[in-house]
């Protein structure tokens, strides 16, 4: 018999109560993991736009609520291009449009045909559109496949009916799921002549990416440079709010869960006062009693956390298949999200059981033994 088998036995002896605590943990973990995977899915989708350009870093307007609302004019694009160490700077306009129910956030990119190769785009069928064509479009190969369209077909988007003149590949599925238009056409449709959303920069060989970034930012305080998805918050305040909301909810779930666990544990330990008195009387130390109680609670937390993660999979699956959220919500189960869930589960257990455990152990054995 070990402390572990003793703890397991104690839990099994009170099945209903153990199940109650495990379920409370499961609900909290489910909430935290679901929030976390949904938000990181949103974040990844939002940051995916950065990955298409195959650039060393991306330049955006600082402090906009959504990166899609970033706006840089011709003069700023030129300034980026002339910044020391910049080999190429490609200005693109990015927007999303509802094409149909299956594609509520179809990605549309406006880019000069001359910039396509610097942007990492290769035309795999047909040809590139003309620089000033008003009704020509290229489709990413995955989008073409999903929409069942071929070169020569018609594609309604960006306010007009366009002819599909080419199929392209970027090698990045987020880019290959969208369409590309001549820059002036998409600027005209969005009534932002001369503006782009982002500038994708390649750094000349021999220059340090970080130094080029720093020089650009200090010369242009109204701009920000983004190299990784985690730096994305610099240009996208929505992401910052989203992260804060997830952190806040995590802490809240942790506290509410700990209170539920603590409350149940207190009641149960009160009933076990005599048991602890007996253990202390036969030579158990306070520390051993606390360890027993906290282990029981941790075991329930492991059980509850596993259940919570399983529930979270079910819930996100259900959410993703809701018609209103289909195509918008991309849950992204990461180790981070699971870790967060585990930390919440274990944290609840330790926080919730520590006080009851110390209380149980702190009674003198005589007091505990005379407890009715």
């Amino acid at each position, binding site marked *: 018999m070990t402390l572990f088998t003793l703890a397991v036995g104690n839990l099994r002896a009170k099945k209903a109560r153990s199940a109650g605590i495990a379920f409370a943990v499961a609900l909290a973990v489910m909430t935290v993991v679901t929030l976390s995977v949904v938000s990181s899915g949103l974040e990844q989708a939002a940051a995916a736009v950065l990955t298409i350009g195959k650039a060393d870093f991306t330049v955006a307007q600082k402090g906009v609520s959504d990166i899609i609302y970033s706006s840089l004019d011709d003069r700023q694009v030129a300034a980026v291009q002339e910044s020391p160490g910049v080999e190429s700077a490609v200005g693109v306009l990015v927007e999303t449009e509802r094409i149909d129910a299956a594609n509520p956030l179809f990605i549309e990119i406006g880019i000069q045909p001359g910039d396509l190769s610097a942007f990492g785009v290769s035309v795999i069928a047909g040809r590139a559109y003309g620089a000033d064509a008003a009704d020509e479009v290229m489709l990413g190969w995955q989008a073409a496949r999903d929409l069942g369209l071929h070169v020569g077909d018609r594609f309604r988007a960006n306010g007009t009916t366009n002819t599909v003149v080419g199929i392209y590949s970027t090698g990045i599925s987020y880019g290959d799921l969208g369409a590309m238009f001549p820059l002036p056409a998409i600027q005209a449709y969005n009534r932002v002549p001369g503006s782009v959303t982002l500038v994708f920069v390649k750094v000349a060989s021999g220059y340090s990416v970080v130094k080029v970034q720093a020089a650009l930012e200090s010369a242009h305080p109204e701009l920000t440079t983004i190299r990784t998805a985690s730096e994305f918050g610099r240009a996208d305040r929505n992401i910052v709010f989203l992260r804060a909301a997830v952190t806040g909810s995590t802490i809240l779930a942790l506290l509410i869960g700990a209170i539920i666990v603590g409350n149940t544990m207190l009641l149960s330990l009160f009933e076990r006062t005599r048991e602890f008195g007996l253990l202390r009387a*036969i030579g158990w130390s306070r520390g051993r009693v606390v360890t027993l109680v906290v282990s029981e609670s941790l075991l329930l937390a492991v059980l509850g956390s596993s259940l919570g993660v399983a529930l979270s999979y079910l819930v996100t699956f259900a959410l993703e298949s809701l018609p209103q959220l289909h195509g918008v919500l991309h849950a992204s189960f990461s180790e981070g999200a699971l870790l967060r869930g585990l930390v919440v589960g274990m944290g609840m257990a330790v926080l919730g059981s520590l006080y009851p455990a110390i209380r149980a152990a702190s009674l003198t054995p005589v007091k505990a033994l005379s407890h009715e």
Partner: protein
Amino acid sequence: MNEPPAHPTPMIETHDVVKVYADGKVRALDGVDLTVGPGEFVAVTGPSGCGKSTLLGLLAALDTPDSGTIRVGSHDLVRLQDSDRFRRQAVGLVFQLHNLLPRLTVLENVEIAMMGSDRPRGDRAGHAARLLEGVGLGAMADRRPPQLSGGERQRVAVARALANDPPLLLADEPTGSLDSRSVATVLALFEGLRADRGVTVVLVTHDGDVAAAADRIIPMLDGRVVGA
């Protein structure tokens, strides 16, 4: 009061022990002087409320006195650093009721007293089984306390009290709820312990027949040991 037995170092020696409860309103012990030699089997008797359980609790380091001195073996209980260790190693305890954990098997009830002891983990179950053999319950190791008679339960409690080979056994009304046949079995067990292992036994009882089995009777009244 009896002359202390002529042993060089007594197993128990208390001097002027006072224990008050309820902010001084109850003087449960009012100056107890007591000496018990090693290997003695004594019975503490007296009317209900005279302080027998309180005294036993102090001897077991379950509680501390308000004044006076208590020595058990080489330990000064007033200045005891590690009372858990003392309870684990220096004394074995048997209570009147609710001695065992009903969820655990008889074997586990004995084994649980060895958790935290110096005995290697692998030896504990075997030692518990031998102790149960010793109290005549070898065949009942896998039962749970509710499936035992009152006398059998008290014998399990005795086996547990001996788990860490203490030199002193303290038993509070161990026969209080037993029929006369079970009483005889438990008393024979105490006798045997003293004879075979030299264990000192202090037995609290209000039953004169039980007390008569001891070497010496220590009568108490109103929180004091009175001359017999």
